[in-house]
């Protein structure tokens, strides 16, 4: 194992142990407290943070665009729009149908945006244009959401507003196994495609010239990233910035790009960012900061710094 990845794993472990032992009530090893509240929170941070980072990395390689990410390309908001639509439309259905529909709609929203983006990539839009298109998709989705919100009733509105805040704390023990299984289903397969991802590092054409079935791999990458993003959207709400900045932080830290070591590092850094956001919430219990606010405070400067260092970044 790479030494730097080992260090990252230790950091993740330290944070996990800290958040298991320490909470709003201080150092307290009460059984119920750890099992009911802290354990699900720590597991969700680890997996959701890691999955967001993985999805971000997949998108950056796939679109050959260092600014790609679930939020910036509008995939998260596409997913949110479909979920919001479902929340408002599913009044009166049974809980099982509502839950199942949420997952399906979330995935369809993410996949729809991906298909749109691929369409534009194939029309040879520049990398900056793609980002702008992504931002426009985001704002279209937000507008769609506000139209839905303005026509909906108080109850659905409240549910939606709660969900749209984003939280790593709303997966509870009975839901936790489902979340873990879905996370693993969407993340573990990525390990089998590390070789192809490495080949994609150069470009789609080079990958093809090295025997990669580009169409098949494209479908696989997109499905996995869409699945990851939609799982997070359903269980945690929209969570920003981890997806786009984790791959950059991982590269800066490792000074390596090969996916064999970059992927684990990005996953671990994604988890670390989630842990850091949760730790801030634990240390400031009475404030009403949301995780998205904390992540934005970390994420936006990181992106600006990256752009500043890459001044010659060509279009």
């Amino acid at each position, binding site marked *: 194992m790479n030494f730097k990845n080992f260090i990252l794993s230790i950091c993740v472990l330290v944070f996990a142990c800290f958040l298991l032992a320490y909470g*709003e009530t201080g150092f307290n090893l009460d059984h119920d407290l750890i099992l009911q509240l802290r354990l699900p929170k720590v597991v969700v941070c680890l997996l959701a943070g890691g999955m967001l980072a993985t999805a971000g990395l997949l998108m950056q390689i796939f679109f050959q665009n260092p600014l790609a990410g679930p939020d910036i390309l509008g995939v998260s908001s596409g997913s949110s729009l479909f979920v919001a639509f479902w929340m408002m439309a599913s009044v009166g259905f049974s809980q099982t149908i509502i839950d199942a529909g949420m997952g399906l709609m979330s995935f369809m929203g993410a996949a729809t945006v991906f298909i749109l983006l691929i369409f534009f990539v194939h029309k040879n839009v520049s990398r900056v244009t793609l980002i702008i298109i992504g931002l426009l998709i985001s704002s279209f989705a937000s507008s769609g959401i506000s139209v839905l919100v303005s026509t909906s009733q*108080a109850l659905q509105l409240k549910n939606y507003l709660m969900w749209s*805040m984003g939280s790593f704390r709303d997966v509870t023990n009975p839901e936790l196994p489902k979340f873990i299984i879905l996370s693993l289903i969407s993340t573990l397969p990525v390990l089998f495609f590390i070789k192809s991802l490495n080949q994609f590092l150069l470009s789609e054409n080079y990958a093809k010239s090295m025997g990669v079935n580009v169409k098949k791999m494209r479908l696989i990458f997109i499905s996995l990233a869409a699945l990851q993003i939609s799982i997070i959207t359903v269980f945690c709400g929209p969570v920003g910035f981890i997806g786009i900045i984790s791959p950059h932080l991982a590269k800066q830290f490792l000074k390596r790009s090969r996916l064999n070591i970059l992927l684990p590092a990005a996953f671990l850094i994604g988890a670390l960012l989630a842990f850091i956001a949760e730790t801030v919430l634990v240390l400031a219990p009475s404030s009403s900061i949301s995780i998205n606010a904390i992540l934005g405070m970390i994420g936006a400067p990181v992106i600006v710094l990256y752009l500043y260092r890459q001044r010659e970044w060509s279009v």
Partner: protein
Amino acid sequence: MKTVLFFFLFGLSSSLLAAECDLKHPVKTFQPRFAKHYAINYFKNFKTVRVGSSQYLLSSNSSIGCETSMNKIIIPAKRVVMMSTTYLPTLELIQREDTLIGFQGKQYIVSSSFNHDKIRDVSFKFNPEDLLNLKADLIMGYDSNLSNPAQVHIFKSLNLPVVMNKDFEETSPLGRAEWIIFIASFYDLEDKAQKIFNMISDKYAFIKNENSKLPKRPKVLVGEIQNGYWVTSGGKSDLGQMIADAGGEMLFWKPSMQTQKISLEELSLLKIPVDVWLTHNTWTSRKQLEEARRKDSRYSLITIKNIFNNNSIINKHNSNDYWETGMQRPDLLLQDLSALFHPDKYVSHKLHWYHKL
């Protein structure tokens, strides 16, 4: 000679006008007992109503020639547009339901006394054209849709009879309920409203006094889990005050009007059993509650004896009468809460809004 006569007449008429419009010496002043944000001054031919920093001149004479910057409202109101369900119980109590011709969000109206076919749905963001078209003689709304200066300017230039209601800024349940007299003043029905309000406040005071003699103060938990936190009402909110007046002890009491976020860890440290849990969620049955509790195992962190929700009376759009009549009748609400906290004393009380899950 003609000129002299002209000046004489002019002087006479303007002094008459001045007498008619003497705003400095009201004949009578009404200062509410509990409400802090309005007052009424009575003059010979008109009255003025002050709400916060705005004043309105109410008169039955449409040609009253007062030179004033106040918005003039012709009373008694016959065509009324309202923006909040909390104003509606007043119309019922003073029996003027038929004057309501426009409302923001008709689906929120729970009471069956209103004829929906005669009421136009108006948008939350006031549309001046729409309102002009309604030919209303009173449009009553609240801060968030009335305080935009640009809009205020438009209302004024169109002479729209817009009036601000600040009942939501009151800091006590009775203060809020006392706005019945404010609304009644636009119908010249203050005396009737005053009688109704006296009945409400007397009853409230009586129940409160009765409860204060009871030795037992049950532990009351308010709220639910949202986004990984226990979200509850502030201790100084209406509900907080009423729980105290109903002889209960509110858990996680904080001296604030605002909604409070309590960490679930703090909640789990609550080792004493909760006597009454007032959930203001959407659950209407035990089954729904159990389903939710099964999905969110964190509810099992606390031991709860009795669970009540406030949604006995809801319309087909799930709008809750608690936020309509409940706000106007703190006496009945206090009765409900007292019966939940002290079932032995209030055996015969039939619950209005609360019901056991």
